[in-house]
């Protein structure tokens, strides 16, 4: 495969990762909304729902990250350990969950930044 063809494939896959990150924003919204809800309602169901949605977001990011690592070299993101069901039972559970979600969102932003830089490099080298 020619170098140009490789570049075209790589660019296509980077754009796809961008696309997937934007879809993941939807999951982030769901998770954040559930967390606001859990903080306000303070019931077991809403807390469980919040944890479930945060995990869903985390899983989506992990997959995107794995695929990104497959096609690009660079530092690997360090994901926080998954939240446990009982996180909200801790005295600072709500804060921990918020920080966890914030951390995940920061990773998503980091991934997007790396992809954007790579795209920019490709545009410049054209």
């Amino acid at each position, binding site marked *: 495969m020619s170098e140009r063809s490789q570049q075209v494939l790589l660019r296509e896959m980077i754009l796809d990762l961008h696309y997937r990150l934007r879809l993941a924003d939807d999951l982030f919204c769901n998770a954040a909304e559930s967390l606001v809800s859990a903080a*306000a309602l303070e019931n077991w169901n809403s807390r469980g729902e919040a944890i479930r949605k945060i995990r869903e977001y985390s899983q989506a990011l992990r997959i995107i990250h794995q695929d990104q690592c497959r096609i690009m070299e660079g530092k690997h993101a360090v994901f926080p350990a998954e939240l446990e069901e009982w996180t909200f039972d801790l005295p600072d559970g709500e804060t921990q969950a918020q920080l966890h979600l914030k951390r995940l969102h920061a990773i998503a932003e980091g991934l997007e930044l790396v992809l954007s830089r790579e795209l920019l490099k490709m545009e410049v080298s054209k």
Partner: protein
Amino acid sequence: MNRMRFGALLVSEDRMVGFYLSHRVVLTVPRPGVVRAVSYEQFGKCRVFARNGVAIGLFDAMIRAAETGARFGNSLEMVNYSLNFPEKSDFAFLCSYMVQKHGADMEDFEIKNIQDDPDNPTNQQWRSEMENFDVKKEFNSKYEEARQRFGKRPNILVCGYTGSGKSSLVKAILGDVVPDSAIGDGAPKTMGYDCYENDLVKIWDSKGLELGETEESFTEETRRFVRSRQDDPNVDNHIHLVWYTIQGPGARVTDCDKNLIKNIFNTKNVIVVVTKSDITRPNQKTALQQVIMESGVPADRIIFTCDEEGGSQGCKELMNLSYAMLPDAYKDAFMEAQRIDREAKIQAVRDKAGKAKAIIATATTAAAGAGAVPIPLSDAAVIIPIQVTMIASLAGLYGLKEEAVKQSALPFVARLAGVFLATSLLKLIPGLGSAINATVAATLTGAMGLYVKSNFEESAIAKIEGRPAPDLGFDVELFKKFYAEYKKNKTEAM
């Protein structure tokens, strides 16, 4: 999400196979030849062999397929080559391999459309518009619209002989809408109608009706005036109610009175107010009532009033009757304008809950529509115009006057906009401001509506009771309470 991984194996309806390269293209062999990237439109409706692990295993196969320069007769040959299958393997073999080796089921596959593509000029235009969005200007414009809708001013015509107590009556019921200078000493004035108005009501005050030779010309003048108003295509300019004043102690209803009540005004819109009833004898009252009824005005629309220390007698009845007789669209403004019955006024404020609910429901639906696609780039700015409209409409509904809007509501809206444009939502969820979707947009807007409605209702009642308006500052804990309420029981919570 899980199905979108580089290398995931896609199968089209006509059994063409391909590898997922991106959300835009599939690697396949569309016609005999080399491997090509084709769009999903070309590839057609397809299904996918899913499971995360499957695609990981297939990624290398995809790269192998992409790198080869070999010519394939069809897409299945490409897969056979890249997965090292026997050369003539058929589609059934592939399916069996995917199930047995990878435990993969075939699932429906569809590319989710994201409309806010940064390359899409429509979105760029929208963002540019959002950057120029002027909260204050938009609020003022929507507030005016809401006032037009919810605060339609009634036109009340007050007619009677000079010195019959017209202006004093208006002042007793509606306050300072008629200036003191207009309340004369009974001296004759130029003939016609003076207009006095405020934000809530428009009063047409007759002048120049004197006993004797002016009666005929006054009647003609009134006929022309009433005709011109009622012929106006805009019903807001019509006369909605007539208060016809007759001085009680005079104990006399003139032919001019009768003619005006019966022939010039529509008796259905007329309330006859007999003033100075405290110095009118009972037999005079009975006689007056009898004659007025003969002019077509029923007894329950004849009100006796007088000025007494501690309040004007009969004015509450006049107010209630007027409220009942006015067309629905004009009732709210009249109730807001009257200063006779405070309890009724407070109740009217509480009765606005239904309209407030409709405003919030409309905004919530609009916000859900706006957030139907996640918008990660421009924060939650897309729902700000919707929320500004909602808050302005609520302000209009509760009759927060311009000054109140400037002092409290507008800074509140600006703060609200700030909250959403900032990177955090209410300090609860850092980062939420960077993306928004339908559920979030709708839920936040609904909760915001409840919060604002509660504040405005409280402000409106405080104003009636003469208390200082509560601070409309953003209270996180209070917002959480309304959020919980809204979330718990969406519409009933309102």
